[in-house]
């Protein structure tokens, strides 16, 4: 029995962490937030095999497991790294692999880092206001709000029926509008479809679900990384910062704030790992676990993000230490792929507790 990461996984984590320490420091993230791109970061992650992670070896990938993807996601969250990881390396491959050998060429491009796939799922999860996506005869109509990312070469789109389609970013029927959000470490777009050509990837709702599940676990892992990093920064700051002739970290109030963050966050790590593991190994538990992990991490991270900012005092509110990038990343993760209340409702439905 071994609950935790294997040696290979620890190695993977170390590699990604090292790369991101060097290539995704706060200044680099700021450059992206100010309008730069993430091409070099993605190229570097591609060299590490990140986009090939979930693609089976037979299809030119590395053939690792969702837990490995979660590990990478945690590191990306900790470094608040701009990257197309969630769509391109996690959700799209899960969908494309599930559809048999049909997309081997595309998977190869993904693995090579030369094709980025965005995700437009919001309307299939919880449709807001007038947004909706309708598919007719291989053509898409309507719009998706808050698709990610902004620089994708194609988009995996879920329609109202939770069927999956692939639309090329340069399709003449597709219009892409950048939507500014608080989270400047990633970019979202609105997609409008006016007779856009759409390849049907899957009409099996279970495929949509498995893509959603792994996406949620990856977001939870990203949240875990970001929240842990905020806690680490808060502890470090509290040790260094002095007021009243002593480090503020020696005040019981500050210590207890940090202890409460740690107490809530520490079990989350196990939860994320288990959720990743369950996706591959425990099909009966996987879906409920994915929902709970997504929702629970959102709640804990909200507490941690606020509390870690408070520990930093006024400095946490400024842009000087940049803590707000993590705060906002946690905030965006909370809403992406399902807000906590709705995701908990799904967890109840999955257990047959309600309709």
């Amino acid at each position, binding site marked *: 029995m071994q609950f935790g990461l294997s040696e290979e996984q620890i190695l993977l984590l170390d590699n990604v962490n090292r790369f991101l320490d060097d290539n995704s420091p706060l200044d680099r993230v700021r450059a992206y937030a100010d309008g730069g791109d993430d091409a070099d970061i993605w190229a570097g992650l591609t060299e590490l095999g990140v986009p090939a992670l979930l693609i089976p070896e037979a299809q030119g990938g590395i053939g690792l497991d969702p837990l490995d993807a979660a590990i990478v996601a945690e590191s990306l969250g900790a470094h608040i790294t701009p990257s197309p990881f969630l769509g391109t390396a996690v959700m799209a491959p899960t969908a494309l692999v599930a559809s048999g050998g049909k997309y081997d060429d595309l998977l190869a491009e993904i693995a090579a880092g030369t094709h980025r796939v965005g995700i437009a799922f919001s309307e299939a999860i919880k449709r807001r*206001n007038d947004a909706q996506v309708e598919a007719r005869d291989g053509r898409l109509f309507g719009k998706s709000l808050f698709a990610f990312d902004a620089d994708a070469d194609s988009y995996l789109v879920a329609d109202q029926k939770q069927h999956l389609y692939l639309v090329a970013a340069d399709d003449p029927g597709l219009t892409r509008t950048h939507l500014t959000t*608080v989270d400047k470490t990633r970019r979202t777009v609105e997609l409008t479809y006016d007779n856009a050509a759409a390849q049907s990837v899957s009409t099996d709702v279970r495929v949509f679900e498995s893509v959603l599940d792994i996406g949620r676990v990856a977001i939870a892992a990203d949240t875990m990384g970001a929240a842990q990093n905020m806690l680490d920064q808060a502890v470090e700051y509290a040790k260094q910062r002095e007021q009243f002739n002593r480090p*503020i970290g020696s005040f019981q109030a500050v210590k207890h704030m940090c202890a409460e963050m740690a107490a809530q966050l520490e079990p989350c790590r196990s939860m994320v790992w288990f959720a990743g593991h369950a996706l591959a190994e425990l099909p009966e538990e996987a879906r409920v676990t994915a929902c709970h992990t997504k929702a629970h991490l959102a709640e804990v991270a909200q507490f941690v993000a606020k509390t870690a900012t*408070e520990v930093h005092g006024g400095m*946490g*509110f*400024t842009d000087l230490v940049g803590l*707000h990038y993590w705060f906002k990343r946690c905030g965006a993760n909370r809403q992406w792929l399902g807000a906590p209340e709705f995701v908990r409702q799904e967890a109840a439905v999955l257990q047959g507790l309600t309709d």
Partner: protein
Amino acid sequence: MDLSFGPEYEGFRSEVATFLASNADKAPKGNDLRGQQAKDWQKLLIEHGYTCRTIPKEFGGYGAEPDIIKTRIIAEEFSKARVNAGLGGQGISMLVPTLLEMGTQEQKEQFIRPTITGDMIWCQGYSEPGAGSDLAALSTAAVLDGDEWVINGQKIWTSTAQIADWIFCLVRSEPDAPKHKGISFLLFDMKTPGIEVRPLVDMTGHANFNETFFTDVRVPKHQIVGERGQGWQVANAILGHERETLAPANTAQTRINALIELMKNETADGARLIDNPVYRDRLMKIQGKVMAMRFNELRVLSARLNAGQDPGLSRMITKLEGTELRHDLEGLAIDVMGEIGLAYEDNPHLRGGGSWQRDYMYFLGLIIGGGTSQIQKNIISERGLGMPREPKFEKAS
């Protein structure tokens, strides 16, 4: 229990309302402190006693006796009409009362009138990077060189520093005295050589504050309020004067009504969000708290009206509870909107002009600023509940 202000005050209220009805078009719209329109408007308000109401006539004020209810009625009516209530800023809210209390006749004559007319804008130089909660640890040095103080150091959170004419500033003038006794309160021109102001961008993405750096800034010796080494007492002299701002719980009330409207208009999967029982329960919880805070403020107001009553705890807890409440309220709005709640700045799906996210963050800033929640809890427990202070673990330096 009597919640009416009585007929005299209702007469005053209609007077204000009448004034607003016929003059609101003269009021400036934005927050421009420098424009001629803002100054003309300020002049008109002072003439009617709708701002700077209790500042003596000899210094350019209206010269009325303090009357909390009238002040509140003015604030309420201006807020209701959404009309600019005159110039604000730390010069008017903090320096003027300080000078009235502790300044020399010359200082009062020199500074109060131009400040309240808007011809002299001030910023406040109190906090430093190393002196936040522990403000008295400030280290910006003022060394006397002949007839001048020579100032070196750095201040932070100097709002309006980028447009200020003058600064009121706490400096360490006696480095060897105990920390509360080595501080002086200086006034000086922001155009003095050696001052650099850098905007301080915060998490909302705006530069609501600045950092201000002093390098060999020379200030005439007499530009001091109070005596040398008395700066701490000068700065604290007006803490007793409560600023007569509009009660924040009224704003929370406005915000929760806006949130209700939002929840009635926004939908998820075609269902109105107000029809979602889980969000609605969160809404009702927050509404209940807003209600409690509104009544608490009425009680504080009432205690202030009825001299001799100490609002006590009800006053001490408002900052702690009020800022947390607003943060929660704005957070609920973001949650009900889901991904739309993330929209910011130029996003075409922005709701409420981006105010939900902005205030969610800004109120986190307020939870921290002006005495963190931890400092507030110290005050509540020690002064409000009479609990013992933490033992001193070493002599104050």
